[in-house]
C-alpha cells in the first residue's frame, strides 16, 4: 500500500521542483517529469493491485493533519478510487510519453508542469473525501486543462480554450455554490459525514435544489447533451494528446465523483436525472456524429455519447430499488466501460495526432500503407463500438442484462445508439481503409500500448463475464479460436497458413465428432465442419494474394459457427454470433472494392445482432429450450437478427455487394455456410419461441410471405445482374428465402424441405461460388459480358457448374429437385395457395438467370483476352468435383440426406411424422404425391446415353467448325464482339417488369440513412459555435434541472 497522500504531495512538490529545474536544465526537468509520472503510476498501481489481490481489505482513509474525518480534510481511497487512480496515471503516462516523442510544446518546463498538474487534479478529484477540496482539485484540473487546450496556440485551440474556460467557470461556480450551500445545510464538508447526515434528513425540496445546483455543475463538466458544445469544440480544437488525456483521465475522474456524489447526496430524482441526461446525450450524440466530417469532432461526439451511456449506467447503479445483483453487474459494466473508453479513445486521439489532416477525407486509405496504424486503429474502433472480444462488448452485454425488464425501453435506446455508433464509426473505418493513402508519422508506441491493454482487458473481461453471467463457454472452442487467431503469425507463407488451417480444422473435426449427434445442433455442426473444410481446401490456389489475416479470420468464422451450433444458451449463441459477424466483416473488408459493402454489412449485421440481443434480453430464461413467452415482440426481435444473416428481404441490401465484392475465397463460406447459420437460428426461434405463442400461426404466415417474396424478388434481381458474384449473391439470398419459407410452414414436411434445402443449397451454391472464384482467378474479372466461351478452356468447371445449375433450377434428376418437391408438397399440404403460386413463379424465374450464368460465362464466343485461360487450379477443381459428386449422388439417392434429416426431426416434438415413406416403384411418397429419384436418374441418364449412342451412329458426318463460323448472312464476322450476346440479356424482360424491380427497399434504407443524416445535420446547427449561446444553453438547462428534478412540493 502506498499512502495516496504521497502520490499527491510528491507530485505537487515535483511540479514546483520542475518549475525550478527547468530554469537550469530542460533535460533534467524532462527526466524528472517522467520519474514522477512513473512513481505515480507505480504507486497507484500498487494500491490497485493491493485491492485486487485482497491485501487491502478496507478503504484507505488518510486523515490530513491527523484530524478525524468531519474535522479535517481526508482522502478516501476505496477499490473504485484506486482503480481510477491507476487508470488516470496510466493514461497520463501514455499521453506524456507520446507528447515527449512528438516534442513537448515550448516552453517545455511549463508544459510539463501543466501536464503533471492535470493528472494530479484528476487524481485529487478521485481521491478526495471532502467537497470543498474537490472543488479545489476541479479548479486545478480545469486551469491546467485550459492551459493545455490552448497549448497549440492556434486560433482553433485558443477558441476552444476560451469556450472551455467560460463554461468551466460557470460550472465551477455552480459546484462552489452547491458545496457552500451543502456546508450551510449540513454543517460539514466531508463527504462521508454529509452522506451520514443526509440519511437522517427529511429530503426537502430545498435540499434537493442544493444537490441539484451541485449536479448541474457536474453535468456541465460531464458534457451532457445540450450543454456540451464547449466540449466538442475542445475535442475539435485542442491538441489531440491533451484531448486524449482529458477524455481518458480527467473526464473519467469527474464521472467517478458524479457517481460518488450521487450516492452520498441521495438525490431522489438522481435516477431520472441520469436517465434523461445520460440517455439523451447518448442517443442524440450518436446520431449527431453521422455526417461529421471532422475526425476530431467525430471522436468528440463519440466520447460524449459514451459518457452519456456512463451517466445512464450510473443512474441504474445508484437506483436502490434494483436488486443488488443487477447493481453489481452494472458496476462491473461501468468499470469495463470506463476502462474501454479511456484506452480506446485515448488511443484514437493519439492516432489522430499522427495524421496531419482534420478532414475525414484526408484519412482515405491511410490504413493500407501503415499496418501497425491499422492494427491500433481497428482495435480501438472495434473496442469502442463493442465488438467482441473487446471490453466494450462485454460491458454492453453486462449493462443490458443488468437492466431490469421494466426499463426495457432503455435497452432499446442503448442498442439503437449502438447501431448509430456503428454507422458512423465504420464509415470512418471504411474511408480509412479505402484505397492507398499516405504514410503517417510513426509515433505509435503509446496507442499501441493502449490497444494491447485493450486486448488483454478483453480477455479478462471475457472470463469475468462468463463467470458472472453463469455462462459456460466451451473451452475447447475458445482454445480453437485462439489457435486460429494465432495462425496469423504464419502469414509470411500462405501455403503454410493454409496447411495449418486445414490441420486445425481437421483436428477440430476429430475433436468435435462426438458432438455431431442426430439433432439440430449436430446437424448444423456437421454442415459447418465438413462444408468449411471443403471450402477452405479450395482457397489454396489463390492464397498468395490474400492478406495475412485472411486465414485466421476465416478460421475464427468457422469456429464461431461451431460455437453457435453448439450453444445451449441464447447469450452464448449471441457472443459467438457477434464474433462471427465481425470476423466475417474483416474478411469482407479485404475485398478491393468491398469497403462500402463491408460498411453496410457491418451496419446490418450489427443492427440485426442488437435486435437479437434485445430479444434475448426480453426472454424469461437464457437456455435454448422451450420458452413460454407471450406477444409477438420477442420472436420478431430474435428472428430479425437471424434474418439479417439470411438476407431476407427487406434486410437484404447488404448482401449483393458483400457477396459480390468480398474476396472470392471467402464468398463460398459466406453464402454456403454463414447464411445457413441464420437458418439454424431461425429454426431455433421457430422451434422454441414461435411454436409456443398464441399468435404463432399468424407470425409464421407473415414470415412465410417474407421468405417467398425474398425468393421472388431476389430471383428477379438476379436476372438483371451483370456481375457473376452479385448474380450468385442474389440467387443465394433468394434460395435462402425458400428455406425460410420451409421453416415457416412448420410442418414436418416443411422442415424436411428446409433442412434438405439447407444442405443442398450449400452444395450447389458452394460449388458455384468456388467455381466462380476459380473462373475469376483465371479470367481476372467477374463482369459477365467480359467472359464467354470458356467451356473450351475449362470443361470440368463447366460440367460442375452445369450440374450445380441444374440442381439450383430444381430440374430432376439432380439433388436440387428434391428440395423443391418437398417444399411444394409441404405448401400444398398446408394449403397456402398464394404463397405456393409465388414460390412456383420464383422458381420459374430462376431459369432465367441459370441460363444467363451458363451462357455468359461458358457459352457463346470466347473473348480474345481469355484465349489463354486455363482450367481452374487443382484444389478448386477438386472441391468442385467433391461437390459435383455429392450433387449427383444425392440426386440419385436423396435418402442419403433425407434419412439423417428425419433422424434429426424425429428428436423434435411435433416434427415426427412427416408422412414421407419410401416405396420401391413410386420412390418417395408423401401424402400428396410421389417421386422416384433413382428411377428418374437412371431413366434420364440411361435414355441420354441410349439416345447419344443412337445419335452418334445415325447422324450425318459431323464436322467441328470454328466458333466464328456462323450463319451470318454471308458476312464474315471478324471479331467476337459482333457475335457475342452477353450484355443485358433480359433487356426486353426488364422493360416488362420495370415496376417490379424498382429498388424500393434500398431506396427506403438509403432514405432512412440520408434523412437521419440530414436531420442530424440540421440538429447539429444547434451548436452555433457562439459562446454566448452555449452559456445560454447552460443557464437554460440548469433552470430546467432545478425546476423539474427538485421533487417534493
Amino acid at each position, binding site marked *: 500500500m502506498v499512502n495516496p497522500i504521497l502520490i499527491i504531495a510528491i507530485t505537487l512538490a515535483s511540479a514546483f521542483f520542475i518549475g525550478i529545474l527547468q530554469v537550469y536544465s530542460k533535460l533534467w526537468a524532462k527526466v524528472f517529469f517522467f520519474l514522477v509520472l512513473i512513481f505515480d503510476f507505480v504507486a497507484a498501481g500498487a494500491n490497485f493491485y493491493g485491492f485486487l489481490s485482497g491485501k487491502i481489505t478496507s478503504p484507505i482513509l488518510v486523515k490530513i493533519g491527523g484530524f478525524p474525518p468531519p474535522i479535517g480534510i481526508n482522502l478516501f481511497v476505496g477499490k473504485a478510487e484506486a482503480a481510477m487512480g491507476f487508470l488516470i496515471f496510466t493514461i497520463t503516462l501514455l499521453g506524456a510519453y507520446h507528447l515527449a516523442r512528438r516534442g513537448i510544446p515550448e516552453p517545455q518546463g511549463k508544459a510539463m508542469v501543466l501536464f503533471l498538474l492535470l493528472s494530479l487534479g484528476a487524481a485529487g478529484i478521485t481521491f478526495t473525501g471532502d467537497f*470543498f477540496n474537490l472543488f*479545489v482539485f476541479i*479548479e486545478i484540473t*480545469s*486551469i491546467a486543462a*485550459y*492551459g493545455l487546450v*490552448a497549448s497549440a*496556440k*492556434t*486560433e*482553433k485551440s*485558443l*477558441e*476552444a*480554450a*476560451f*469556450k472551455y*474556460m*467560460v463554461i468551466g*467557470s*460557470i460550472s*465551477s*461556480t455552480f459546484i*462552489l*455554490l452547491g458545496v*457552500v*450551500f451543502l*456546508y*450551510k445545510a449540513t454543517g460539514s*464538508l466531508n463527504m462521508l459525514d454529509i452522506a451520514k447526515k443526509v440519511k437522517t434528513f427529511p429530503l426537502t425540496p430545498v435540499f434537493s435544489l442544493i444537490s441539484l445546483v451541485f449536479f448541474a455543475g457536474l453535468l456541465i463538466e460531464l458534457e451532457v447533451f445540450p450543454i456540451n*458544445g464547449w466540449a*466538442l*469544440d475542445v475535442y*475539435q*480544437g485542442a491538441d489531440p494528446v491533451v484531448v486524449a488525456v482529458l477524455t481518458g483521465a480527467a473526464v473519467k475522474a469527474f464521472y467517478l465523483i458524479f457517481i460518488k456524489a450521487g450516492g452520498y447526496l441521495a438525490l431522489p430524482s438522481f435516477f431520472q436525472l441520469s436517465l434523461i441526461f445520460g440517455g439523451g446525450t447518448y442517443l442524440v450524440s450518436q446520431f449527431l456524429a453521422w455526417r*461529421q466530417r471532422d475526425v476530431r*469532432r467525430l471522436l468528440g461526439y463519440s466520447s460524449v455519447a459514451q459518457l452519456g451511456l456512463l451517466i445512464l449506467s450510473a443512474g441504474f447503479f445508484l437506483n436502490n430499488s434494483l436488486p443488488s445483483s443487477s447493481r453489481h453487474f452494472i458496476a462491473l459494466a461501468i468499470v469495463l466501460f470506463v476502462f474501454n473508453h479511456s484506452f480506446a479513445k485515448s488511443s484514437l486521439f493519439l492516432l489522430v495526432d499522427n495524421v496531419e489532416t482534420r478532414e475525414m477525407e484526408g484519412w482515405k486509405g491511410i490504413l493500407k500503407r501503415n499496418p501497425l496504424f491499422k492494427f491500433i486503429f481497428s482495435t480501438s474502433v472495434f473496442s469502442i463500438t463493442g465488438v467482441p472480444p473487446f471490453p466494450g462488448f462485454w460491458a454492453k452485454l453486462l449493462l443490458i442484462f443488468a437492466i431490469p425488464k421494466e426499463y426495457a425501453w432503455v435497452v432499446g435506446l442503448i442498442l439503437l445508439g449502438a447501431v448509430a455508433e456503428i454507422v458512423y464509426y465504420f464509415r470512418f473505418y471504411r474511408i480509412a481503409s479505402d484505397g492507398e493513402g499516405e504514410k503517417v508519422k510513426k509515433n505509435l508506441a503509446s496507442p499501441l500500448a493502449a490497444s494491447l491493454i485493450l486486448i488483454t482487458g478483453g480477455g479478462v473481461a471475457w472470463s469475468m463475464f462468463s463467470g458472472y453471467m453463469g455462462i459456460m463457454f466451451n473451452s475447447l472452442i475458445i482454445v480453437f479460436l485462439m489457435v486460429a487467431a494465432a495462425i496469423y503469425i504464419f502469414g509470411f507463407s500462405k501455403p503454410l497458413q493454409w496447411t495449418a488451417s486445414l490441420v486445425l480444422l481437421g483436428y477440430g473435426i476429430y475433436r468435435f465428432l462426438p458432438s455431431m449427434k442426430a439433432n439440430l445442433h449436430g446437424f448444423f455442426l456437421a454442415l459447418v465442419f465438413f462444408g468449411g473444410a471443403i471450402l477452405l481446401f479450395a482457397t489454396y490456389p489463390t492464397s498468395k494474394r490474400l492478406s495475412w489475416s485472411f486465414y485466421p479470420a476465416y478460421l475464427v468464422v468457422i469456429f464461431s459457427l461451431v460455437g453457435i451450433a453448439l450453444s445451449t444458451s441464447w447469450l452464448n449463441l449471441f457472443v459467438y454470433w457477434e464474433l462471427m459477424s465481425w470476423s466475417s466483416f474483416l474478411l469482407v473488408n479485404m475485398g478491393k472494392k468491398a469497403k462500402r459493402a463491408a460498411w453496410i454489412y457491418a451496419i446490418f449485421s450489427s443492427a440485426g445482432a442488437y435486435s437479437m440481443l434485445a430479444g434475448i434480453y426480453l426472454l424469461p430464461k437464457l437456455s435454448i429450450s422451450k420458452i413460454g413467452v407471450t406477444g409477438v415482440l420477442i420472436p420478431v426481435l430474435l428472428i430479425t437478427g437471424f434474418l439479417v444473416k439470411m438476407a431476407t428481404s427487406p434486410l437484404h441490401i447488404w448482401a449483393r455487394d458483400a457477396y459480390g465484392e468480398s474476396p472470392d475465397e471467402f464468398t463460398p463460406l459466406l453464402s454456403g455456410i454463414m447464411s445457413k447459420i441464420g437458418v439454424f437460428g431461425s429454426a431455433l426461434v421457430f422451434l422454441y419461441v414461435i411454436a409456443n405463442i398464441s399468435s404463432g400461426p399468424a407470425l409464421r404466415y407473415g414470415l412465410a410471405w417474407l421468405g417467398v417474396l425474398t425468393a421472388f424478388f431476389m430471383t428477379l434481381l438476379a436476372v438483371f445482374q451483370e456481375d457473376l458474384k452479385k448474380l450468385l449473391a442474389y440467387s443465394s439470398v433468394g434460395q435462402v428465402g425458400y428455406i425460410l419459407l420451409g421453416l415457416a410452414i412448420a410442418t414436418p414436411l416443411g422442415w424436411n424441405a428446409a433442412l434438405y434445402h439447407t444442405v443442398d443449397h450449400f452444395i450447389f451454391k458452394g460449388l458455384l461460388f468456388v467455381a466462380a472464384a476459380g473462373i475469376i482467378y483465371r479470367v481476372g474479372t467477374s463482369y459477365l459480358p467480359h467472359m464467354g466461351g470458356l467451356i473450351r478452356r475449362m470443361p470440368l468447371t463447366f460440367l460442375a457448374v452445369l450440374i450445380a445449375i441444374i440442381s439450383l433450377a430444381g430440374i430432376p434428376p439432380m439433388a436440387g429437385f428434391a428440395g423443391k418437391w418437398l417444399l411444394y408438397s409441404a405448401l400444398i399440404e398446408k394449403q397456402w395457395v398464394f404463397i405456393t403460386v409465388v414460390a412456383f413463379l420464383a422458381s420459374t424465374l430462376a431459369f432465367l438467370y441459370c441460363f444467363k450464368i451458363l451462357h455468359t460465362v461458358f457459352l457463346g464466343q470466347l473473348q480474345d483476352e481469355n484465349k489463354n485461360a486455363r482450367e481452374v487450379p487443382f484444389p478448386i477443381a477438386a472441391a468442385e468435383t467433391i461437390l459435383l459428386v455429392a450433387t449427383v449422388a444425392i440426386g440419385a439417392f436423396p435418402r442419403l440426406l433425407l434419412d439423417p434429416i428425419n433422424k434429426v426431426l424425429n428428436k423434435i416434438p411435433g416434427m415426427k411424422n412427416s408422412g414421407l415413406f419410401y416405396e420401391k416403384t413410386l420412390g418417395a411418397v408423401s401424402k400428396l404425391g410421389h417421386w422416384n429419384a433413382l428411377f428418374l436418374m437412371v431413366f434420364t441418364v440411361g435414355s441420354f446415353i441410349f439416345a447419344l449412342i443412337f445419335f452418334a451412329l445415325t447422324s450425318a458426318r459431323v464436322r467441328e467448325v470454328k466458333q466464328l463460323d456462323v450463319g451470318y448472312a454471308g458476312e464474315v464476322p471478324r471479331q467476337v464482339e459482333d457475335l457475342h450476346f452477353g450484355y443485358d440479356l433480359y433487356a426486353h424482360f426488364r422493360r416488362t417488369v420495370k415496376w417490379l424491380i424498382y429498388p424500393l427497399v434500398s431506396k427506403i434504407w438509403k432514405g432512412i440513412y440520408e434523412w437521419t443524416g440530414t436531420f442530424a445535420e440540421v440538429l*447539429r*446547427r444547434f*451548436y*452555433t*459555435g*457562439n*459562446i*454566448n449561446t452555449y*452559456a*445560454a444553453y447552460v*443557464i437554460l438547462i440548469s433552470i430546467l434541472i432545478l425546476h423539474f428534478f427538485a421533487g417534493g412540493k
Partner: protein
Amino acid sequence: MFFFASSIALILIGLYAVLVKRNIMKMVIGLSIMDTGVNILIISLGFIRGKTAPIINAKDLLVRTSSKVVDPVPQALVLTAIVIGVAVTAAALSIVMLMYSKKKSLEIEEYKELKW
C-alpha cells in the same frame, strides 16, 4: 436577506455579461463579477448576527468561543475561492491576450470557427 439578494444579483449580472456581451474581454469581466458575487454570498452565509470576527486575541473570547464568533469556515473557504478566482481570471486573460494577438479582435463573432 439583502446580502443574499445583492450577491445573487452580482452573480446574475456577471452571467448576464457572459450571456449577452459580444466582447470577450467583457465576458471575462463578467466572470470576475460572478466570482465576486459568489464570494460575497459565501461570506454572508457565514455571518451570524451579533458576533465578532473569529480572531481570538482577547482572553474573554477563550471561553465558549463558539457562542461569540461568527462561522470561520466560510471565511476560510472564501479565501481559497478568491485565489482561485484570481487564478482563473489570470488564465482567462492570458488566453484572451493570445486570441487578440491572433485575430486582432475581441468580437465573439470572430471566434466561431469551431461549431456543429
